């Protein structure tokens, strides 16, 4: 057991810091650090900058742009990225479909998609949830029926985050309705410009347009866009959702949000109740960060460690708790959420209520926190 970074890891960390603070445009980093929204172009530019440095997809296989890093190095990469305000590489590309294609895809699929996915030349969307298939994902009904070499897809996906930006969508579709529900699912990659694909926005309680419905009406998909085995989609889904679980524990970002809140709080910091809430949150975030370091998030075969459910569950709870504290500190100023830019209220306070409302999603997505408790009780505790 040893606390200090080795000289090699310390050197690694300063190299990351150097690259992130000198290569990624200041305006993009300021936008992130101030908690404002990034445009599609900014997200793309940041990821391409990272990719040019070999830092967009370090957890992929080396032959597809990955770096053979230790868990600690990955943690340092992630931490330094967030410290510098560099947008995290788009999760749909870097954490979800990329590792899936690298693991399950054909050589042709890898060559066609992986470089473009790493570089965000293709913006991927996720087509998993359906109106009647949320936590019970395997009951999905969007169907794909063989027609010659092609598949014809009909159905509806929902909660497709940033689907308005999507070029392609990775979907779970029912390819065999006659068998046990998990055994009749396949994964199809679908070009969102194909006739019959329609994206409809969903307005959320924070007033934003972040998620969408995606409708498929007789969408014709070439047969070579099936990933992995026919009817083997459930295995792929579990692989992907496990990685998603690891990806959505936002320790570093939450830590920075709390730090920023302290700098905004001013005289409110004289209130012992406020100080106690901050101190408790800082301690809980420390414990979570240490747990991320202690528990190996990925075993050697790329599958997530079951304890990653702890990170998702607690990470989202703390993310929500910090947003609640921000709301409470903002007070009446939070009412000006949709006021004009010349509002006399400070930006952080005007963002507090929408952020608080928006982050209620965190304990629902990526496998709801109840699903995480089920994973812990079944897989880890054997209950």
């Amino acid at each position, binding site marked *: *057991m*040893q*606390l*200090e*970074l080795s000289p090699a*890891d310390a050197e690694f960390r300063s190299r990351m810091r150097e690259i992130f603070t000198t290569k990624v445009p200041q305006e993009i980093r300021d936008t992130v650090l101030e908690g404002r929204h990034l445009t599609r172009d900014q997200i793309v530019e940041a990821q391409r900058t990272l990719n040019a440095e070999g830092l967009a997809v370090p957890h992929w296989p080396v032959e597809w742009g990955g770096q053979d890093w230790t868990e*600690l190095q990955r*943690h*340092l990469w992630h*931490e330094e990225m967030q410290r510098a305000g560099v947008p995290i590489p788009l999760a749909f590309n870097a954490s979800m479909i990329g590792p899936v294609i690298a693991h399950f895809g054909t050589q042709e699929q890898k060559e066609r998609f992986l470089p473009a996915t790493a570089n965000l030349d293709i913006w991927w969307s996720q087509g998993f949830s359906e109106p009647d298939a949320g936590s019970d994902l395997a009951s999905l009904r969007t169907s794909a029926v063989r027609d010659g070499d092609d598949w014809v897809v009909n159905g509806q996906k929902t909660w497709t985050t940033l689907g308005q930006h999507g070029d392609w969508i990775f979907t779970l579709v029912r390819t065999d309705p006659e068998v046990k529900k998990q055994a009749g699912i396949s994964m199809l990659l679908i070009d969102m410009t194909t006739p019959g694909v329609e994206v409809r926005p969903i307005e959320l309680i924070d007033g934003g347009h972040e998620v969408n419905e995606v409708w498929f009406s007789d969408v014709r998909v070439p047969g070579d866009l099936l990933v992995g085995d026919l009817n083997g989609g459930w295995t792929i889904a579990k692989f992907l959702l496990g990685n998603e679980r690891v990806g959505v524990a936002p320790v570093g970002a939450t*830590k*920075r949000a*709390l*730090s920023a809140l*302290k*700098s905004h709080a001013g005289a409110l*910091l004289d209130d*012992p109740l406020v*100080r*106690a809430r*901050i*101190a*408790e949150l*800082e*301690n*809980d*975030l*420390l*414990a*979570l*960060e*240490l*747990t991320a*370091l*202690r*528990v190996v998030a990925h075993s050697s075969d790329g599958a997530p460690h079951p*304890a990653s459910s*702890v990170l998702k*569950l*607690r990470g989202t709870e703390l993310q929500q708790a910090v947003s609640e504290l921000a709301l409470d500190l903002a007070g009446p100023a939070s009412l000006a959420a949709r006021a004009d830019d010349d509002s006399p209220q400070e930006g952080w306070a005007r963002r507090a209520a929408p952020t608080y409302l928006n982050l209620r999603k965190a304990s629902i997505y990526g496998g709801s926190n*109840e699903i*995480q*408790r*089920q994973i*812990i*009780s*079944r897989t*880890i*505790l*054997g*209950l």
Partner: protein
Amino acid sequence: MDFTYDDEQQALREAVRGLLATAYADHEARRRTVADDPGFDRALWGRLAEMGVLGLPFSEADGGVGAGPVEIGIVCQELGRVLAPEPYLSGVVHAGGLVAAVGTAEQKAELLGRLSAGEVLLAAADTSPGDRWTSDADGVRASVADGTWTLDGVADPVMGGASADHLVVTAALPDGGTGVFVVDAAAASVTGYAAADLTRAATVRFEGSEATPLGEPGRDLSASIATISDLTRIMGANQALGVMQSQVRATTDYLKSRKQFGVTLNTFQALTFRAADMYVSLELAHSTVDWATMTIAGGDREVVADAADRVGLQVGRAARHIGQEAIQLHGGIGMTAEYAVGVGTAHLTVLEQWLGNAGHHLGRLSARVTDHELVDAV
């Protein structure tokens, strides 16, 4: 940064676990031991001495083994696992730690060699009625006349006090500050009692009790006293971790075997989800305990003090959560003295109120919250 034990540390864990299993293979053995004086197993204590466990914290020059904090933490975790009532934390880590921190070379060689060999028992008397985890004594006062030091006042609770041969006492100095003294148990009036977990504590009354100052007589030793308290807190957190690990294991085993309504309890999601939450608390506490233990090796007093507050808060919260839920998920059997789970909660309660509860540590952390932008693990 590395959270894994090396081969020697693994071997130490297995050896200590094996030895403790001979004494406390089941909870009934612990129950018998605490029912009689001195409240712990002297034969086991002797074997811990033979194994070198009692000398782990002390340098070879002082008659110890010269091991690091990780090794001491391993021992404390194992003691916690079986709720061992042996006065290791109070007598070796705390009282021995005070001697090692402030004693002269001769005093250390004299006391720590015999402590390590299991020949004498020490107890730290650093708390008086009304005190709440401070490092400056006011309930016991030291005076000096003709070069002879004496103490007056009351110390309570003194963990392990009733069986100690020597008391290591913090006392207010005549010219201000706090000193550390060694007092023969025979020179004080010692009244033993059982704490809530049936481990032993004592009230110690000093009335002109002759005392030997540790280190340079008359010097204020508050800083060293505080540091040893912080080290003891971190080791107490290791012990609490061992208790909580046993409780989570016992609770999951119980849910799998206990039947009601014709089915095992793990059929009920209301219960399995609560067990999952216990596991989350346990893992977060575990990480914080390992981290706090590792900070000690750096030797920076302020870093260790901060780590003691952080682990004190995290483990304090976890101990309440896990200790309470372990009883609730067991139902009535968890309330009984014959079952380890509820007694574990009693032990966690004693550790917490002895060494500093979550509210105390949160108060200290709150006072410092504007001293830093954020808290980094690495």
